[in-house]
């Protein structure tokens, strides 16, 4: 029985519920959460190996055969991201243990982190488009709570906007599902794909696909990112890192899934629009990243640049480009979380948010400073770090497909990433030290452990790219040939 597929979602939910009863015992909550995450990571790695030998695995809930029931489908792409998401959550939590504060921990912090992970993993694994909506909502509800935990003025203000924007985008999602259901009468993604390839992608279906595109663009911050910089700078550092690492990536995942599995018949319309949006996102994100002096804003705009870059891979739609997109997605989850953690820690230790007001941090915290340097190189795509392979593969795909504008924009944006982060590095780590050695805030062990783990992961992704290659190639292959996915689901 394939019941194991449901565990990456069901285990965190169950754990989150149990932790509600253990409210006063914060130590126990921490231990249980870490154990649960380790089990989840173990299960997803086991699933990844299993998929390589036996192909895509699926689980029909309640024994209802597709296309009638809800189902979970585990293919390489989904499981790679499940693994990455669980690992990122674990490391962010290690940071949270020594930074989030007892008051927030007492307000069911660990329960909601578990619910967030459950929603994220569920969105990756589901094979039913309405179930996808439900999983999105689980994730978003948890994120609504996490963003406001602590109840500071800024959090309350930004969370209201974040919540309203997301409610409206979820509304668009439902409308799109209603239109799709009216035309096809099914919600199973593989079945939708079969019906569309039988009937052809009619103009009405293409319009529906564009409604979906609006939804996912809002969720992932593809051009419609106006809500992102504000909301991602409000919550505590560990939560911001979780958001930066996971939330937009779910939107990207779904966009890739929907536009490779379901709406792939009219690429000259849909994929061209995605390409234009990705190009615009790269431009606007680059401008944003160098325009601000608030570190949190700079980091948030870096998230937006990455969204644009990954979706260049989708717009191009070749084997290499999709492999690159998957690689870059993995890399970006890790690197962006680390970047958010580092930026948040800089604000914690200096008490300043503007980069003009900090300087000379490297004298106080040398290791910390060099980790910032490493993550900067990694995001800019310098070998042998993790960003390199993704960038090269996406670039190679873009050359093959002849989309030179996207290629140029993608690589110019890398320079902007490098410039924006180098500016932070030079301004705040070099120069005269502002913190005397007597009153410097000590760097806690938990912080350094989480930074170290993230940095090690970036090196692993970069140096061990050969080892990950078969998984990524399989993921891209499944994306490019939807028939593999359909056969696995409908037999």
């Amino acid at each position, binding site marked *: 029985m394939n019941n194991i597929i449901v565990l990456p979602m*069901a285990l965190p939910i169950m754990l989150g519920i149990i932790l509600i009863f253990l409210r006063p015992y914060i130590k126990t909550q921490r231990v249980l959460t870490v154990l649960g995450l380790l089990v989840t990571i173990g299960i997803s790695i086991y699933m990844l190996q299993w998929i390589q030998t036996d192909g895509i695995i699926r689980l*029909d*809930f309640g024994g209802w055969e597709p296309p009638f029931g809800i189902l979970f489908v585990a293919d390489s792409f989904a499981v790679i991201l499940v693994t990455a998401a669980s690992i990122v959550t674990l490391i962010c939590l290690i940071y949270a243990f020594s930074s989030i504060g007892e008051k927030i921990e007492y307000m069911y912090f660990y329960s909601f982190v578990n619910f967030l992970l459950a929603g994220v993993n569920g969105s990756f694994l589901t094979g039913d488009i309405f179930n996808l909506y439900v999983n999105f909502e689980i994730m978003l509800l948890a994120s609504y709570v996490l963003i406001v935990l602590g109840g500071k003025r800024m959090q309350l203000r930004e969370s209201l906007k974040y919540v309203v924007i997301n409610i409206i985008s979820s509304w668009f999602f439902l409308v799109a599902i209603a239109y799709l259901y009216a035309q096809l009468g099914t919600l199973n993604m593989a079945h939708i794909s079969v019906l569309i390839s039988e009937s052809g992608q009619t103009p009405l279906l293409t319009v529906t696909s564009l409604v979906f595109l609006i939804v996912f663009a809002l969720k992932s911050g593809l051009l419609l990112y106006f809500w992102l910089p504000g909301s991602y700078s409000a919550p505590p550092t560990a939560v911001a890192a979780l958001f930066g690492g996971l939330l937009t990536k779910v939107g990207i995942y779904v966009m890739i899934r929907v536009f490779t599995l379901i709406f792939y018949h009219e690429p000259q319309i849909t994929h061209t629009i995605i390409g234009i949006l990705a190009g615009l996102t790269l431009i606007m994100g680059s401008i944003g990243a160098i325009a601000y002096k608030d570190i949190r804003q700079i980091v948030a705009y870096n998230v937006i640049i990455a969204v644009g870059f990954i979706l260049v891979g989708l717009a191009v739609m070749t084997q290499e480009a999709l492999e690159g997109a998957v690689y870059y997605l993995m890399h970006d989850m890790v690197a962006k979380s680390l970047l958010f953690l580092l930026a948040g820690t800089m604000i914690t230790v200096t008490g300043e948010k503007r980069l003009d007001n900090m300087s000379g941090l490297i004298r106080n915290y040398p290791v910390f400073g060099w980790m910032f340097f490493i993550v900067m190189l990694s995001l800019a795509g310098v070998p042998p770090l993790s960003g390199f392979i993704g960038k090269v593969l996406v670039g190679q795909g873009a050359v093959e497909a002849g989309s030179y504008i996207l290629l140029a924009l993608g690589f110019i944006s890398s320079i902007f990433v490098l410039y924006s982060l180098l500016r932070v590095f030079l301004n705040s780590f070099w120069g005269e030290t502002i913190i005397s050695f007597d009153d410097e805030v000590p760097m806690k062990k938990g912080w350094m452990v989480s930074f170290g783990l993230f940095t090690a992961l970036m090196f692993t992704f970069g140096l061990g790219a050969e080892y990950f290659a078969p998984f990524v190639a399989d993921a891209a292959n499944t994306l490019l040939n939807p028939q593999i996915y359909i056969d696995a689901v409908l037999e």
Partner: protein
Amino acid sequence: MKINNVILRTVTKLAVFIILTLAVYLFFAGHNSPGGGFIAGLALSAAFVLLLLVTDIETIKKGIPLDFKKVAAFGAFLAVGTGFGAFVFDVPFLTQSFGNFVVPFFGEIELSTVTIFEAGVSFAVVGVVITIILSISEDV
């Protein structure tokens, strides 16, 4: 705030029991005819809300000494927990099964594992609704 409304108080004493009975009826009517855990939970919480309207929060808290957050969590635990039963019996997640049982006085009734799930849903709904109402009304 002191409420002095004899009619509402008297009616409530009767109406609460009618609503509670309706809730129980709706709960068991589910599955094969209109009804079910969610609606039953809403009806149950309607009864509690009516009680809250005529008396004050302290009285209710004394009368029903439950932490409704925990009630909601317990409901969710029950609902998700039924899914995990699938691991024990080695069937797909969330599979349901049912059987007919002869219960004295009621005769033959049909019970299914869905009933446990629905009970969880009811608890969750009651817990959530009352928590929301209490947390909004606490400091007005």
